[in-house]
């Protein structure tokens, strides 16, 4: 009956050292658009209970929020699990405190990238956007699928304009920060 109680055992928490805690972290996060509701969290776990990713991995939205509120900045921003959220917005709809967790994740990811903790897959995507103007390159197979679905052919992206926009938005510096960290690691 308890079919899934052990679907995925959870890594026990490591003891927290004083030096791990940056007490101002939650305020820093809550200043960003989308993360204002952070401090309302009751850590009730409704977000984790409905999260499709939590059902199959170690990732727990409630845990991420708990760690942010505790001030475990490095641990949160460097964790791999931060990149597991599928952005399905289920938690956001279920949360009884209007914490808007999916938006908090976006904020945390943006912070993580600036600190140089981007997940490799996301870096690859970013590079592809700069290079081809698309997240995934246009292949013959995609073209054929579109034909079968009676969709019009895709236009060539305006790469030059796109690059100009990204440059003025500071995209290369962000990429640079991320790459720097991955070189030193």
């Amino acid at each position, binding site marked *: 009956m308890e*079919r899934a109680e052990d679907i995925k055992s959870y890594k026990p928490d490591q003891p927290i050292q004083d030096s791990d805690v940056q007490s101002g972290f939650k305020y820093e996060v809550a200043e960003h658009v989308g993360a204002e509701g952070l401090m309302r969290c009751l850590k009730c776990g409704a977000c984790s209970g409905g999260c499709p990713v939590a059902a199959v991995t170690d990732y727990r939205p409630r845990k991420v929020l708990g760690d942010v509120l505790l001030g475990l900045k490095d641990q949160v921003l460097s964790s791999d699990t931060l990149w597991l959220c599928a952005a399905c917005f289920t938690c956001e709809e279920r949360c009884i405190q209007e914490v808007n967790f999916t938006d908090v994740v976006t904020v945390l990811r943006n912070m993580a990238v600036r600190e140089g903790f981007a997940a490799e897959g996301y870096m690859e995507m970013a590079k592809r956007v700069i290079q081809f103007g698309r997240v995934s390159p246009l292949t013959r197979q995609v073209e054929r699928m579109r034909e079968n679905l009676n969709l019009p052919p895709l236009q060539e992206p305006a790469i030059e304009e796109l690059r100009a926009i990204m440059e003025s938005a500071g995209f290369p510096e962000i990429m640079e920060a991320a790459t720097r960290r991955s070189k030193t690691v």
Partner: protein
Amino acid sequence: MTVAGEKIVVEDRKSTDTALVIGGGVSGMQAALDIADQGYSVVLVERTPSIGGVMAMLDKTFPTLDCSACILTPKLSEVARHPNIELMTYSEVKSITGTAGNFRVSVLRKARKVLEDKCSGCGDCVPHCPIEVRNEFDQGLGYRKAVYIGFPQNTPLVYTIDSENCIKCGMCVKSCEREAIDLDLEDEEIEISVGAIVVATGYELYNVANYRRFGYGRFKNVINALEFERLINAAGPTAGNLMRLSDGKIPKSIGFIQCVGARDATKDVPYCSRVCCMYGIKNAVMAKELQHENVKKVTIYSIDIRAFGKGFEEFYNMAKDRFGIKFIRGRVGEVSENSRNKNIIVRAEDTTTGKFLEQEHELVVLCPGILPPKGLRDTANQLGLQLDSDGFIHVEQPASNPVDTAVSGVYICGCVEGPKDIPDSVAAGSAAAMRASITLWREGEH
């Protein structure tokens, strides 16, 4: 105190000798008794055919597990027999004018089509009535006839004909030896004068179907807590046999989900309903107590347990230690149905360990929060009362005058002010009675 004697005739009394109590739940009953015992007369107006309110539907009461009916029934008959109390059940207040000392109240007495002074409550009419509908008192789980009492201790013990479903076949009329039934009776509006008013219209349960993710209304084996109370009650639709609705089997494993329509800002119920943790634990314990041979696993899923009252924490610990109730700290994410056996799969995170749980229960009970009663805004408008943002009646000075409203001569008690358990509702009933009596005394001529 039990007072016996001839019933007073309210119409003959001065307004400053009489109080009106609106709502005949346990708090309104207490207020009526305490005013009446001081020698004033009371008109108690109750919307349904019987006084008693929600307490009459409950099986046991926390934290002592006393039988609810055993505590309530003597009070019901005390109210019914008290010479200074005039019961107006199946009635509603239509309008109120005037001020403290002299309120003019018009009361709509809906036609119950059975004469209260003739009906003996024998029920001989019942088998003759061909119409069967769901019994509201049993939360729709049992059935009643169109001529009915909701439960055996219906007070006053007078049958009522539900005009909505009655087909006027006249079978009941013929069967009644006392000639108590008159299908041509019509609603009646009467005027009374009172010096003080106590509002005790109680509460309503949150409609748990608003949470699609918890499956109520979609899955048969998801029920609400009041339905559970009726299912384990010896006078209920199953004669106290706990069973699940899909197949009538005794559920071996039961999950209770707390805070359904409480502490949820997105559903406009940001407040804690106070009683749900305790009634959740009570019902979990009762499941084990009644069916310890069969019910093997009982789990309560909660945000946290609020056991704030006298003896509550001890009761909570007893549930854990003696009855082996499992408590999971984690609000449930969602439930689904196992289509094969109609069991309910509950998904939640145990937030104390971080474990993601997916547990199958044969029955799931949702524990709904407490809302202001239907029609409270109308009552408030009639009286010139303000409502708080949560919809309950506003009290100006909750710390120093907890039962006083902003209108002089008008008092409140019970859940109409906010969620309360029975002891607190009764205490407030006594307090409101005292405040109302003081008004009657001051306004009267001495």
